[in-house]
């Protein structure tokens, strides 16, 4: 199921597919958000933005606008 990273709910995991903004992509790539990497949404800030995701073994925070440039496939939880 294709979504963007900003649409995940807390606790949901997904696999990074691609990026829609090449400038943002570069910034995210260097932070370890590479295609094929599993991400999990851990926290959402109280005002709904930014969000914190678990990726490459650490916690990364980013704004929703930034997260929405990352296309992901949702992983079905708890198989």
């Amino acid at each position, binding site marked *: 199921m294709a979504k963007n990273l900003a649409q995940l709910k807390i606790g949901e995991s997904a696999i990074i597919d691609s*990026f829609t903004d*090449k*400038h943002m*992509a*570069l*910034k*995210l*790539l*260097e*932070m*370890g958000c*590479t*295609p094929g990497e599993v991400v999990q949404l*851990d*926290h959402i*800030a*109280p*005002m*709904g*933005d*930014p969000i*914190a995701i678990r990726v*490459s*073994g*650490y*916690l*990364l*925070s*980013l*704004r929703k606008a*930034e997260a929405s440039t990352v296309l992901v496939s949702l992983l079905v939880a708890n198989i």
Partner: protein
Amino acid sequence: MEANQSIVNFSERTSLKVALVGNPNSGKSTLFNALTGLNQKTGNFPGVTVDKKSGFAKLNSTITAEFIDLPGTYSLYPKSLDERVAFDALCNPDNEDYPDVTIIVADASNLKRNLFLVSQIIDLKMPVILALNMMDMVEKEGDVIDIIRLSEKLGVKVVGVSARNKEGVKALKQFLLEPLPVPQYDFIDVKKLASELIDKIAAVVKVKSDFEAFQIISNFSETHFFDKDAGKKVILSSILSASTIDYEKLQSQEAVERYKIINRIVEECITHKSAIKTESFTHKLDSILTHRIWGYVIFLTVLFFIFQAIFFLAAYPMQWIETSFVLLSDFAIQFLPSGELTNLFVNGILAGLSGIVVFVPQIVLLFTFIAVLEDTGYMARVSFIMDKLMRKFGLNGRSVIPLMSGVACAVPAIMSTRTISSWKERIITIMVTPLMSCSARLPVYTLLISLIIPQTAGFFNYQGLILMSLYLIGFIAAMGAAFTMKKILKSREKSYFIMELPVYRSPQWRTVGLTIFDKVKLFLLDAGKIILAISVILWFLSSHAPGNRLDVIEKKYESSEMLIKYNDTERQAKSASEKLEASYAGILGKSIEPAIAPLGFDWKIGIALVTSFAAREVFVGTMATIYSVGNTDNTQTIRSKMSAEINPKTGLPQFSVAVGFSLMIFYAFAMQCMSTLAVVYRETKSRKWPAIQFLFMTALAYFSSLLVYQLLK
């Protein structure tokens, strides 16, 4: 990829330049502190406003190493100012900070992402040592890193350290003395990505690696490559502009290629205790600290404590400092021969020094809190929960602490904006923080409020209400100014919020101590100079007059007529008042009267405006002198003198409600604080920003006061 190495050996040298580079939160600065101790100095990276920390340590009896702490960076893509500094030092051999050896500090508990920068530096083919920091964390989680294997895979020396416990630091120093392998292989084959261009660049510039050429291609416009070699610069830019290659796409491809190999290496070198990570301590704590209610409750509590500390707790040592300086002045007056030099020493230099040292308690307290919040990882959460709100005003989540601290004092507050990484957000925070009502305004407000607002008994106290409104007005003005600056300021830097939320750790008191030491030193040396100079100038202006005007006044009050008319205290007060009026400051006050008359101010207030440029609270003392009140500690007397003052034109009290409000608004907005200006100059390293700040705040003060006075008159 293991083979193919060349070796360098520095054991014959007497000095060695070592750069420390690593991701933010990798513990790089902790390691730097562990390596150099107090033997540090702060300077400038050439041509930029980023502080450069360097320190020295003896490696053995003959070799001294200079360690340079480069700003934290995730990659060699120079996007922010900090990243550009690290990039320039490592990628440009002409740079004065180009190191003999580079120590890459990597967070071992977060190896994958940290290896990205490592892989880029390896491809520059320079001597490197990889310091795997936070090995204690890795062990605590039960993971095992095969350091020997990692070293083989990367082709560089790897040493496990735990900078917090100072473990492995000796081994790291020892490695600098041993023969070092210089990686000769390519971590990734960048030629695959842009072979033609790399060849073209390599034909013009002598590069050590394909990656160096690749870096020139993808970052040419961002950096200062070949600034000294205009000829080459022209050739290179013509080569690059002829190419249709998409540099950003090129870098993205590079990043993906790197992570492919990194993933393999990580898989081979790390054994995880269990595949499933348990709910970590950090995760649980984050659920509370970023909670939609508790998150703010806790943050407000923290702010409250910081505020209390710098507002009330600091008052005691500040009092001691002031008292000591008074004693010192009395002592000097008593034992030094009276004359111009003593006068300069006591009223110019000692007074100036007192005005500098008095800030130290607030700086120490604020930075104790900030260093702890930063060190534990909580500061990143503050940004996280405040980002959305602050972003609307062009500020950063981290601007909250400087703004709140500004209520106590803008000087430490502005120094604390260092934690804001975006240049634009940091500048805006610096520019608007002095609009927050600081504690120096309080004596001015208290005096003026008591003058114009009757003390009402009973439930509702108007005086308190007015005071609260003044604080609120300051806050609103700060946010308004921030919003305006957000629209005006142009920045090439995009505002990001892509940052790591580090795991929570207990603070290191050593780091906290060093931060405080560093801040106090910088303030005393850099800002202190300017404050002292202005103090001396202000002293001169208010104690000197053209010709022999002061002598004439002195003689007048020594005449027998005056001796009969007034007692000693009265005589001294009257003479001081008349002298101040005759002084250069008095002349200045009178000459600005036409300009400030529309605000309802007379020349007496004009003098106070001039002298309180040293610090706002000087207003009260100046008023006391002008109104010939002998004892300046007694506000009651100043108040009654001031309220008895009649405006000669109207025949009504000079300090009417309109004048009082106009004056309070003026003090709320005006940049009447040379210490703040000195600190802004120090922090922005440019005369432009303090000048703009002074002008916009003065203009805001002037026109607001004008409006208030004309409406209320």
